[in-house]
């Protein structure tokens, strides 16, 4: 099951060195978000394609292999293809140019956003990313819940993997029938039951180490001029795209 391996891939390229890797994570997240929002606002398919080019350049210059990008794209490409097909049928007869254009625009934007996301997440360890969340001025309890979710995700995933192996070992084949659903339902429930008991125990363990609802983290790395320059550069590039998009003569 390919999904199961995705998270392990998250940290695969985190140890490399590049301008993206050296960028202070909080600023990087902020700039990435601004860039994606800007791209989503674009109306010209051509400029959206340019944005995708920029995103790919960013990814490649941070030493993420192209093959890695493409395998991640493969996840959304089927959906985009179905959408393109559906839109191009238009009223049901022949290909509609307008529909195709929309499909192209949407695909470019979706791929750009995905590429930016992969680059943001892939160019530092997951732990550093989570740390960055704790160092932003966000409400403590939801951030704490995010940290726990991130941690227990791997527990669940492992447990699920073990259970699926145990199912397979007893020749269980998931099919769209009542039995599969009942097996999955009870597996879900028993995992959740375990999770509930665990959640109480986890809270006790946190309280035992002095947790009082406040999240205290290591001091963030100082933001330097290079970090800022990178931020300005990426915001400026998307602003430029938007200006051209809206017909400003440049």
């Amino acid at each position, binding site marked *: *099951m390919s*999904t*199961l391996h995705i998270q392990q891939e998250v940290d695969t390229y985190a140890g490399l060195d590049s301008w993206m890797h050296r960028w202070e994570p909080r600023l990087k997240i902020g700039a*990435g*978000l601004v860039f*994606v*929002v800007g*791209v*989503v606002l674009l109306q010209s398919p051509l400029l959206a394609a340019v944005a995708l080019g920029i995103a790919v350049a960013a990814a490649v210059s941070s030493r993420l292999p192209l093959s890695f990008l493409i395998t*991640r794209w493969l*996840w*959304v490409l089927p959906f985009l293809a179905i959408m393109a097909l*559906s*839109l191009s*049928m*238009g*009223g*049901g007869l022949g290909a509609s140019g*307008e*529909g195709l254009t929309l499909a192209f625009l*949407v695909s470019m934007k*979706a791929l*750009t*956003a*995905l590429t930016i996301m992969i680059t943001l*997440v892939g160019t530092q360890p997951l732990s550093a*990313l989570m740390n960055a969340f704790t160092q932003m001025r966000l409400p403590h*309890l*939801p951030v*704490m*819940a*995010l940290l*726990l*979710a991130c*941690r*227990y*995700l791997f527990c*669940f*995933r492992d447990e*699920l993997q073990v259970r699926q192996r145990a199912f397979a070992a007893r020749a269980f084949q*998931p099919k*769209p029938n009542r039995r599969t*659903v009942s097996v*999955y*339902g*009870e*597996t*879900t*429930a028993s*995992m*959740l*039951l375990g*999770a*509930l008991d*665990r*959640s109480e125990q*986890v*809270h006790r363990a*946190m309280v035992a180490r002095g*947790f009082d609802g406040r999240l205290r983290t290591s001091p963030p790395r100082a933001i330097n001029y290079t970090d800022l320059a990178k931020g300005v550069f990426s915001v400026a590039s998307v602003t430029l795209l938007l200006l051209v998009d809206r017909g400003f003569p440049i």
Partner: protein
Amino acid sequence: MHIADGVLGTPVVAAAAVVAAGTLVYAARGMKSEDVPRVGLLAAAFFVSSLFRIPMGITSVHPVLIGLTGVMLGRRAPLAIFLGLLLQAMLFGHGGLTTLGVNTLIMGLPALFAGWAFAATRRYPVLPRGFMAGVVGVIGGTLLVVAFLSLSSEMYSQGPFSLINLVLLTHLPIVIIEGFLTGFAARLLYRTRPEVLGIEEQRRENRAE
């Protein structure tokens, strides 16, 4: 049930982000430190549920656990769903960044509703209640997907093979699957941990003790 970046029009995305922020404030209000692990664990469960694949023709479908999250978390459900979505977006590239608000609404609002409906039908047996919560969750989510799509561009609803028709078609099996799954899950939870009906309720019971 995720909508990716770029699919929806800007006004829709912006409005959804604002409403989603409001929903999250509602969901997080009055949160205590003891609620943190449960919210976190359900966010993780929500994430992981997408790994239960049931093959169906050339594709496969997976449960979404909207109803179950609502039943178990009550008003905190949208928060868990938001965190689960954030992680899915970061680790899988599932969904999108700018559509986090949209997706939180698509799944969070039906979860709230399913949780409420589950609690309101207390007098009935738990299996049909769970089934109902599951069904309500997915139908609500699907309708919201359709609503967001049709608000964004009329092209999404044109023709027999329109995107909206495809969405409706592919979500039909999930409705049934999720209904049964939530029903079975709720029954098992009810037998073993009857007090599990959402944080609010549990706290009230504790106080009553």
